[in-house]
């Protein structure tokens, strides 16, 4: 990727920093006898820095190795054996990868997961952005009240929310009662393959709204007021300010919320399990619910199948995350 040339004030800051750095370096060398440090000392210094860095990284690397890498290796090994804990396992090679990859249910679950994520992530982010923008305009007491109110759903158990929404979507539930006021009831929310995922997505957005809004609000508060005020003086309205100032400066926050949101939404299984039991006809069977359903059968086949499907889902989600980073050119965003 060719770096874009810097213009105007952008050029000024690095040039000044470089000059300051040179000045500092100069003053240090002067104190050490007006000679430049030998190259060997420089290398030793960098070795020491590297050692410190490795030492600081070590705990995380050890934990990662114990709790992620080693289990992954073991899971991969287990995916090549069929057996239970009472008989010696039988080596089956990559057979189960073929079984999972030729199972239409696996692809159907990926589609369902993607559909759910496409509704929940952008929908949740949009609503959170609007609420965060609104909270930013409030006084401190009202903003505190609003933040607490918005955050409350986050502490509600997903199980409780599921039961609540199952009742709301029932034939004589709240949703149908509201729709009956405008003569469009009854709707078969959980019995219709086209309506079930949007219906499940509503509590999905609701439960995640609090934390998304607070992260978004923190990002908004980081944007200097002077930028907004300048735009206002230039006559930019809310939409233009949002499009040209807020969104570009929120890029890192949005990227974080988008990537973690996509990965979390793809893996949702509690809401579709408890609200719709994966139905109708697997229309709400997300990838993790698909794996869970396989695992519920206590057979050696089911266990190896579940592990294999989990590993394949890991690859799918890793690929999706990498694609998102690639498409959004995240390295620029992160360095911005």
């Amino acid at each position: 990727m060719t770096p874009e040339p810097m213009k105007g004030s952008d050029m000024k800051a690095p040039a000044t920093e470089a000059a300051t750095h040179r000045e500092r370096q100069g003053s240090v060398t002067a104190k050490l006898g007006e000679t430049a440090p030998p190259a060997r000392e420089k290398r030793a210094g960098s070795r020491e820095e590297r050692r410190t860095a490795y030492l600081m990284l070590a705990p995380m690397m050890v934990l990662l190795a114990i709790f992620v890498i080693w289990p992954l290796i073991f899971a991969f090994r287990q995916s090549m054996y069929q057996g239970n804990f009472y008989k010696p396992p039988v080596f089956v090679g990559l057979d189960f990868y073929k079984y999972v990859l030729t199972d239409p249910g696996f692809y159907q679950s990926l589609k369902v997961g993607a559909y759910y994520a496409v509704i929940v992530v952008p929908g949740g982010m949009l609503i959170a952005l609007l609420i965060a923008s609104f909270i930013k305009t409030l006084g401190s007491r009202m903003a505190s009240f609003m933040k607490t109110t918005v955050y409350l759903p986050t502490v509600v158990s997903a199980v409780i929310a599921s039961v609540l929404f199952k009742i709301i979507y029932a034939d004589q539930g709240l949703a149908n009662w509201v729709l009956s006021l405008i003569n469009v009831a009854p709707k078969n929310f959980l019995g219709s393959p086209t309506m079930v995922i949007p219906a499940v997505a509503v509590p999905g957005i609701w439960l995640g709204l609090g934390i998304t809004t607070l992260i978004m609000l923190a990002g908004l508060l980081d944007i200097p007021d002077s930028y907004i005020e300048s735009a206002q003086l230039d006559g930019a309205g809310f939409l233009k300010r949002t499009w040209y100032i807020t969104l570009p400066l929120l890029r890192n926050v949005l990227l974080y919320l988008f990537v973690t949101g996509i990965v979390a939404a793809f893996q949702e299984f509690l809401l579709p399990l408890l609200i719709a039991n994966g139905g109708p006809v697997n229309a709400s069977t997300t990838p993790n619910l698909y794996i869970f359903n396989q695992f519920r059968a206590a057979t050696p086949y089911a266990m190896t199948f579940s592990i294999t499907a989990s590993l394949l889902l890991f690859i799918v989600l890793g690929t999706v995350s990498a694609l998102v980073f690639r498409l959004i050119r995240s390295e620029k965003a992160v360095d911005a």
Partner: protein
Amino acid sequence: MRRGKGLIALTLAAASAVSLAACGSGSAGGTGTPAASGTPGAVETGCSSATTVTFWQQKFEDYQQAWYKKYVAQFNASQNCVNVVYQVVPGDTWTQKLQAAQAAGTQPDVVTTNYGNIKPGVAQGQFSALDDYLPASAFADIKSNVAPFVTQNGKHWGYPMLVEPSTVLYINTDLAKAAGLDPASPPKTWNDLIDWATKLTSGNVKGITIASVAADLGWSSWGLQYNSCGHFPITDDWSAGRATESCFADLVGLYKTLYQNKLMPQNPKTGYADATPYMNGEVAMMVDGSWALGAIKQTKPDLLPKTVAVPFPTKDGGTGETTATLGGWTLTLDAKSKHPKEAAAFISYLAAGDPNIMADFFKQAGYSKYTTRTSVDQAIATNDPSTKQDANMKTISEDIVAHGIAEPQYPWDISLAMGTAIEAGMKGTASVDAALKTANDSINSTIQKQQLKGTAPQS
């Protein structure tokens, strides 16, 4: 958006199960002198310390937990050689928890196992035969129609505690009379049932509730599949699927009519096994297992006199036909138990010993579950003669249980494929024929991948 580290957790769960397997097996044993060395199934007394036996029970109705707790305590108090550590495990975490324990070598000595998992478990070497530990009289007491459920290769791999038919039709007599129907002459055919449901559907009250999602349909329709076709959707030797036979289409057609004509809830609040919609008056008829009768007795006793339990109608109105499979629970002994004699002694005490213990269980259940032992029937008749006068209990026992058959032993994937086909057909996401074709393909795929051909268990 719900944030979490689901993937990592899932991977860890899968992988830790594997890594735990490498940790070797633990011991649940105690230091007591070996018990039960004399008479099979008996426990010695006068030990210096007790041997620990672990027992896991899948969680059911509250009265069941209370019953188990009471008799585990009584067993522990009755001798000092065996100490049973009792643990209740919720059903939705049962498989995961049990497999994790098996991986770690800390599996319980005794567990509750349903009939459907006995023979697959035997094939996997999961259980110890009880014949070596219990007296022959204990097995002679088991009713002849139940014994095959736990018998393979001439040995008993679990001790049966109860049976319960999975499909019973309950009718609210008040609502039936109000609709001009005679509860004393309940529907005999599937067409009758549709007619009754149509007449009973009024306003917010639906005519009937029956399973409507694949996970429930997969098992609750076993008896109806058998009634419609005389067999399950797989050949007897498990070599090929039979789901495309027209008799299965007839069954899907029944569900489709009930659903498409809005004679049943379109968005049910609860699953098949839950009797709440019927108890709340949201439906006039309910298809549920026999356990629903116990729920009504305990939760809404005033509804009991207005409820009549009858066999689910047969396709063509025939009587004495199978319309329900008999589910139920057994106690099994783990093949890796370090103390099989002591564990078997507990099984003997709880399920195969004094018939009054099991008689008390059925009393607590409101007689909504059915006995597996002749001696327990006799104990109930002696202790509680009024049960003979319970018309609903008599109907379920004589007209449903007597004609019930064992649950199929094939893998759940096959049942789920049929459940999915019924759901697809009833909700119109596919034509009935296309749905059954998909199910048949799925069954054949399961046969091939799981190498089922010729592996059907024999008694």
